[in-house]
């Protein structure tokens, strides 16, 4: 028994934890931009942490349930309303067939995740239900959710803990001025030392071009390049390289002006140099940044990156322990 989509919000897509393994063919891993939030939503409703849910950007959809189930909303602060009554996020909420779920306006963050007991059960493409519209993979016919769609649910195993709640202390949201930790590398040597120092000192702002493929930033000083003779095949612009792979989280700066951080639906390669990579621990945070949010890039080394990664794993374990 499915869920009926009455309105679809702004860019609501079905996402799970993605389809790693095909990046060498230009098919990105995809999956929830804020993986921690999706995992939490799934845990609340008793699903496998990697079950498919909805990723909602800025606005929520309006949904009608045709069967009893449990849902939870996590991620950005997008308060759920059940038949018009505002309820708490980060909480397992039971619903009856015929009830309608809608949302209040977004209070903070950028993306909310809705998990349903049983998980959304659309067909798997390359092992994942994640929507990748460019390659027409996952979701419903490879596209975002539309009004009139029906979302099939899998069989729930009855482990949903009605009323279960994840308190604020166990969550993670961006602060007023966000800090993203970056490990310099890749083509870092292409910019001058002074330019590199300034990149980390200045405050940037999220630009309007910010989506699942990548987040663009503006407002900082253009980078200064070290002079070179363009290598054959690279192109004449100082920011060009012979087309190469792009790591997830890598920071490319076309023409040295506006940094772009590639995210879950990254293009797998191209001809722009990159000055470093956002560490894995901070990738989820990017998915919660709204346009115009002031952002600082913080230079870190590998030990810090690995220790931050361990901290994120501990934070997830704390949620697991809290709900156990």
């Amino acid at each position, binding site marked *: 028994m499915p869920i009926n989509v009455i309105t679809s919000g702004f860019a609501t897509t079905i996402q799970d934890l993605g389809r*790693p*393994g095909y*990046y*060498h*063919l*230009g*098919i990105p891993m995809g999956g929830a931009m804020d993986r921690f939030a999706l995992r939490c939503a799934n845990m609340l409703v008793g699903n496998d942490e990697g079950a498919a849910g909805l990723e909602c950007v800025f606005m929520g959809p309006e949904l009608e349930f045709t069967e009893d189930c449990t849902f939870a909303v996590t991620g950005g602060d997008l308060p759920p309303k059940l038949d018009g009554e505002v309820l708490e996020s980060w909480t397992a909420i039971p619903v009856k067939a015929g009830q309608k779920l809608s949302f209040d306006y977004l209070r903070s963050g950028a993306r909310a995740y809705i998990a349903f007991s049983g998980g959304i059960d659309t067909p798997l*493409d390359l092992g994942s239900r994640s929507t990748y519209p*460019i*390659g*027409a*993979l996952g979701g419903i016919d*490879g596209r975002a959710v539309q009004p009139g769609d029906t979302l099939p649910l899998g069989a729930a195993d009855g482990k949903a803990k009605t009323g279960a709640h994840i308190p604020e202390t166990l969550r993670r949201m961006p602060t007023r001025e966000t800090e993203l930790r970056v*490990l310099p*590398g*890749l083509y*870092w040597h292409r910019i001058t030392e002074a330019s590199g120092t300034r990149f980390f000192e200045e405050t940037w702002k999220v630009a309007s071009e910010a989506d699942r493929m990548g987040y663009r930033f503006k407002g900082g000083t253009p980078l200064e390049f070290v002079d070179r003779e363009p*290598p*054959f*095949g*690279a*192109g*004449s612009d100082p920011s*060009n*390289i*012979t*087309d*190469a*792979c792009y*790591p*997830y*989280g*890598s920071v490319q700066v076309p023409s040295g002006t506006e940094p772009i951080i590639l995210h879950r639906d990254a*293009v*797998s*390669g*191209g*001809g722009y140099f*990159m000055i*470093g*990579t*956002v*560490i*894995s621990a901070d990738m989820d945070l990017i998915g919660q940044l709204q346009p115009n949010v002031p952002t600082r890039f913080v230079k870190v080394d*590998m030990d810090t*990156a*690995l220790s931050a*990664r361990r901290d994120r*794993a501990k934070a997830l374990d704390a949620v697991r322990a809290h709900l156990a």
Partner: protein
Amino acid sequence: MTSRYTFGGDEHVFVEVSEEMSLEAFFTTLSMTNAVRDAKIDGVTEICPANASFQIKFDPDVIHPDALMDRLKSMEATAAKQEPKLTTRIIEIPVYYQDPWTHETLMRFRERHQDPEATDIEYAARINGYDSVDAFIAAHSGAPWFVSMVGFVSGLPFLYQMVERERQIQVPKYLRPRTDTPKLTVGYGGCFSCIYSVRGAGGYQMFGVTPMPIYDPEQKTGYLKDFMVFFKPGDIVKWKPIDRAEYDRCLAAVEANTYAPRIREVVFSLDEFNADINGTNARLEEALYAD
């Protein structure tokens, strides 16, 4: 050639085999990535070869980044000693140069182009010193091409022509990327040709279109039944110029799902190629059309 090793955050090692493009750099990339694949290193999750560089994605909870980097470096010497020889396939790809669909698109984006008065292919022919577009097409479709990278989006191949560097065609990308490119456009940027696997944004010059799908997420196309992506690095491509009538015939065959690309297995040796480029290319073409 000494490779440069660097980390892409805590989950990627990025190896630049060479700053500049060459068949040698591409072959080193291919043999290194093959060696890494064969080594089945615990914690390595993705192996992505590019034109003259490659990237290894890994799980740092399984293998320490420094340990992986050391392991990769230790493999370089062995890979370098391997004979640059490859058993691969040569594929004929029909191209309808100067087709009406890419023409309509390029006219829509003229203000983003270096030479708004000319078409993309007229511009490319002129700046590469060809007397006519026909002579340029003869050069583009003359010698074969290596698929030197698959990526950007959904199975898009980058192709590098198998000719001396003096004969390499070079064309800058659009001044500002287009927001639209027809599906299956044969494009050009820098020293690379490409086929746009899906419709979308793009910055490469547009020369024509192929009727032959190279990406099919539904896997209904006969020759894409086993996997949705057609190309892999190391494939060799020979463009075949076709006219509108032939394009329509190919398209009808694609739609009836009877289209079968001409594909033959070949062995390519970089040493033989460097010793006799024209002779090697002639032998490859012979193998493609022998039967």
